[in-house]
């Protein structure tokens, strides 16, 4: 056993994916430099002062590398064998954390050991990824074979989500939801993604364009109705491949539209909600009638889409107006540009945009960023670290960082696709999903594209938990990948 391990150790470094390791090292080093810049004060101590963020981060990096090496030296089979136990332990820790963690700005997600604080949610990611991989690796497991398979996968994903939500750490919880992308890779219908995308679009359009009124309803809602009708027709035509029905429905819709236009020109106003709902109902009944007569089921999804869309649209208004808290409404409004609240919810994003925007093409130069140095940008060494890069290194620097991340993600997808067994592939896709989600949301919020969800930029943001979490995530993948040839034998 002893000698085997040593052999494995040597072979690991031989077949290690060094491109990923290189990208990881560049990103981590760039992160440390950025943290140094972000926390640099004009009366600053040295880079290696352990009291400073940058000094501590260097310590975290050192420990991360150590963890990485240890992970690589461990037998790859351990991860698969102990996937569920690891998952269970992590769930337990997450559960315990809810009760014993001190209250930090309302969240109970940090465990404190002396002077070191750790966030278990960061370590839940690799455990969940392992468990999900293990599930898909079960004998003859096929996601679409039984509906319970979906439930099993969703339970693995949502257990930590629930626990983390209970810790009031919404941002981290959302990250786990990105694992649904993995289900897509493993055969989940694209319609789900389509539905989610539609829901987001409908929500944004309906909330953002409240003025002016068309047919007595907000123009946003009006547009959503039009889009639903259009998609309905297009789905009939291309998804169900039934041109005749699509044509008839189109004639019906257009005809009704012409009549309503003429009526409103004559001064008779028609309530838009009732008009569109009625119109769609007529289209659905027509399709249903056709479907039942010819005993074919291909229209079910299309009909479901239309029904769900309309119900969703109705519920958006209700949820937005009656369920969301005022501060949540405010965040959404600020994000959608309906309101500018530069002192409150919009302050962070506005300052962040100012910092990045003032960077220009090549930036103000290393350590010359005034906005980040003078603490205008909140959380500048953690969640808003990208600001420092944008301000000091400009568009060029920010683009290079994005390119590095893109390179890493593409490389990891490549690595994922070369895995021969579901366990490794699913695990790899989990890593990819989590990285993409972090990157998209973090950079998105810093440049004002998505709401401010407090999640770190991988490898850059200051913090031991986050860096260790990503290191573990990545190095387990590297370890699994390094042994893929062994498994082929």
């Amino acid at each position, binding site marked *: 056993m002893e000698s085997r391990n040593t052999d494995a150790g040597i072979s690991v470094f031989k077949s290690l994916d060094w491109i990923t390791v290189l990208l990881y090292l560049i990103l981590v080093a760039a992160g440390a430099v950025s943290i140094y810049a972000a926390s640099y004060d004009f009366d600053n101590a040295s880079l290696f002062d352990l009291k400073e963020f940058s000094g501590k981060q260097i310590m975290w990096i050192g420990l991360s590398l150590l963890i990485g090496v240890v992970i690589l030296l461990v037998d790859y089979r351990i991860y698969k064998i102990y996937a569920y136990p690891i998952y269970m332990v992590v769930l337990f820790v997450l559960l315990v954390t809810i009760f014993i963690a001190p209250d930090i700005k309302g969240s109970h997600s940090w465990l404190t050991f002396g002077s070191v604080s750790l966030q278990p949610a960061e370590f839940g990611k690799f455990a969940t990824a392992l468990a999900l991989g293990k599930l898909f690796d079960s004998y003859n497991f096929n996601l679409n074979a039984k509906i319970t398979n979906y439930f099993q996968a969703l339970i693995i994903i949502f257990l930590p989500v629930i626990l983390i939500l209970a810790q009031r750490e919404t941002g981290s919880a959302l990250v786990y939801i990105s694992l649904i992308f993995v289900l897509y890779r493993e055969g989940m219908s694209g319609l789900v993604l389509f539905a989610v995308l539609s829901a987001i679009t409908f929500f944004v359009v309906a909330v953002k364009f409240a003025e002016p009124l068309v047919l007595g309803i907000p123009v946003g809602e009006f547009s959503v109705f039009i889009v639903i009708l259009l998609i309905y027709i297009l789905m009939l035509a291309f998804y169900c491949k039934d041109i005749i029905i699509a044509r008839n429905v189109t004639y019906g819709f257009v005809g009704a539209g012409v009549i309503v236009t003429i009526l409103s020109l004559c001064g008779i106003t028609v309530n838009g909600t009732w008009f569109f709902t009625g119109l769609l109902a007529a289209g659905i009944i027509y399709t249903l009638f056709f479907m039942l007569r010819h005993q074919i089921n291909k229209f079910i999804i299309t009909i479901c889409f239309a029904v769900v869309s309309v119900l969703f649209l109705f519920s958006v208004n209700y949820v937005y107006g009656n369920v969301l808290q005022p501060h949540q409404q405010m965040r959404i409004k600020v994000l959608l540009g309906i309101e500018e609240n530069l002192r409150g919810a919009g302050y962070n994003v506005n300052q962040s945009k100012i910092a990045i925007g003032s960077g220009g093409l090549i930036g103000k130069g290393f350590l010359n960023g005034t906005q980040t140095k003078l603490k205008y940008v909140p959380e500048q060494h953690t969640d808003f670290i990208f600001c420092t890069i944008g301000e000091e290194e400009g568009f060029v620097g920010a683009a290079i960082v994005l390119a590095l991340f*893109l390179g890493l993600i593409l490389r990891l997808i490549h690595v994922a696709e070369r895995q021969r067994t579901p366990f490794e592939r699913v695990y790899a896709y989990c890593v990819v999903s989590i990285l993409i989600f972090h990157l998209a949301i973090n950079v998105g919020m810093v440049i004002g594209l998505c709401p401010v969800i407090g999640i770190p930029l991988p490898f850059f943001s200051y913090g031991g938990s986050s860096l260790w979490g990503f290191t573990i995530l990545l190095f387990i993948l590297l370890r699994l990948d390094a042994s893929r040839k062994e498994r082929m034998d």
Partner: protein
Amino acid sequence: MRKDYNLEKRKYIIGGFITLIDLIRLFNLQIGDTKYKESAESNAFFRRVIYPSRGLIYDRNDKLVVFNKPAYEVMLIPKDVGEFDTLTLCSVLGITKEQLAERWADMKNPRKNPGYSAYTPQKLISHLSQEDYGKLSEKLYLFPGFYIQKRTAREYTFNAGANILGNIREVSTTDIDNDRYYRRGDYTGDLGIEKSYEKALRGQKGVEILMKDAFGRIKGKYEDGIHDELPVAGRNLKLSIDIELQKYGEELMRNKIGAIVAIEPETGEILALVTSPNYDPSLLVGKERGKNYAMLTRDPYKPLYDRALQGAYPPGSTFKPSQGLIFLQEGIVDLSTMYPCHHGYINGLRVGCHGHASPISLKPALQTSCNAYFCWGFKNMIDKKGTKPGVQFEKWKDYMVQMGYGYRLGVDLPHESRGFIPNTKFYSESFRGANWTANSIISVSIGQGEIMATPLQIANLCATIANRGYFYTPHVVKEIADSAIDVKYKEKHRPKIDKKHYEAVAEGMRMAVLGGTCKLANLPDIEVCGKTGTAQNPHGRDHSAFIGFAPYHNPKIAVAVYVENAGFGATYGVPIGSLIIEKYLKGEIASNRKYLEERMYNSNTIIGSGVKKH
């Protein structure tokens, strides 16, 4: 393991799509839009103004008149303010608890104090006296978060010349709108030369570009201060005023309403510009400024009103020399022309006069201030045979304007009045088209009727006679450090009247001193020339006026005195005028004339004269 090859391409779409959106957005933010750069600068840069010291003011003999003294302001940083005893603070500052509460509320009121931030220094009390400063510094440890900031305020060496010097106030919104130089909280000159020479006195503010963090804390100079601008100190002014003479004039005018203007004829420099009642210039400095200003505004004797250049009075008989000049120049009279005076001008109407020989020629007429002579002269000029009605009067008016009447002279002080010299059009409208002749407006000839002149204009006439035919625009600033005064004060103005006529008028005025109405001005070793004036007015007793210059040859001072409701020119005008002349030329008053000085110090013409409206 299915769909491997199709899916392989999806990765570019997933990863690439997100990166692309981010890149487009970044491009927009960083290169497309410049507003963020500006926001960043206004965010992080704190442009701290460095105030220059305001120019000092000296008198013509280089005596320091106005300088800067340290003033103190109580400042605090709200977030650092800890628990303190309000009552102790109130007693140290000498204010009531309510006043403190009010100041506190004003400080936090974003409308009154737009720059309020809990993290930056805020001004609680301005104009802390030296004494209160001492008391507060001793107890400052009791008030965490408080500190004292030094500023400067004006200080005056003499309690004199407030009307000339003016004062300083905080800029108003209008000032800020009119001049981009000013920022809220800056000071600007109000009244006097502080106002008219504001640009020279204020200097140029400097600026220090500091970096401030999100909490408003200063984090040092931006790029070690290479973008800073140093302030330029305000220019010092040297006045033409003799501050001792000014002070002396103000003392003579004590308890009287009126003005004294003394001019150096050969330069047009004003030696003294007294208005009475006056006020102590230091009243308008410091925290009492607002209160005192309101008090001065409410004072029924209007001390803020500069009678020397804002007051327009009937010049009375001080007008007669100018009439004599016009008659001579126009050939209406020559020096031998005699007019009858039987206790007045009797020609269909009667203008009274007093007892003297008759008939009378110009010089004795000036000597005795004969009304009839000037009425006859005026009549013969205006109603000159063979001239169209009104033409001669226009000519007369032009002479008056040349002599500096009817328009602002252009003194370098604000709010000068133009007085009033009517023209033909004015009378044609007054008489509604009816024919009017010299007799209709005969009182004009003796400086009454519609004629209005400021003491400054009256003094300027005197200076012109002293110069025998020219004047410089009177001004109070002699020199501006490292700069030159306005060229208009270096231009000679010459009324179109021959020098010899001035010589004759000067002789008449000399005779008035030797043996006429101005005998009190006859100094043993100075040849004084003078002319009294006793102006009727609708406000009560006659105004007492005097013009005079000395010495007769090569005059060094021309003076006009105007005392409201004080009776005969000889009673107040002559003594005051002659004392001013004597003081200026001799430096002191001869012992045999001290009684005059005493009489002026102790007289009071305000009592019983009623309050006048202007």
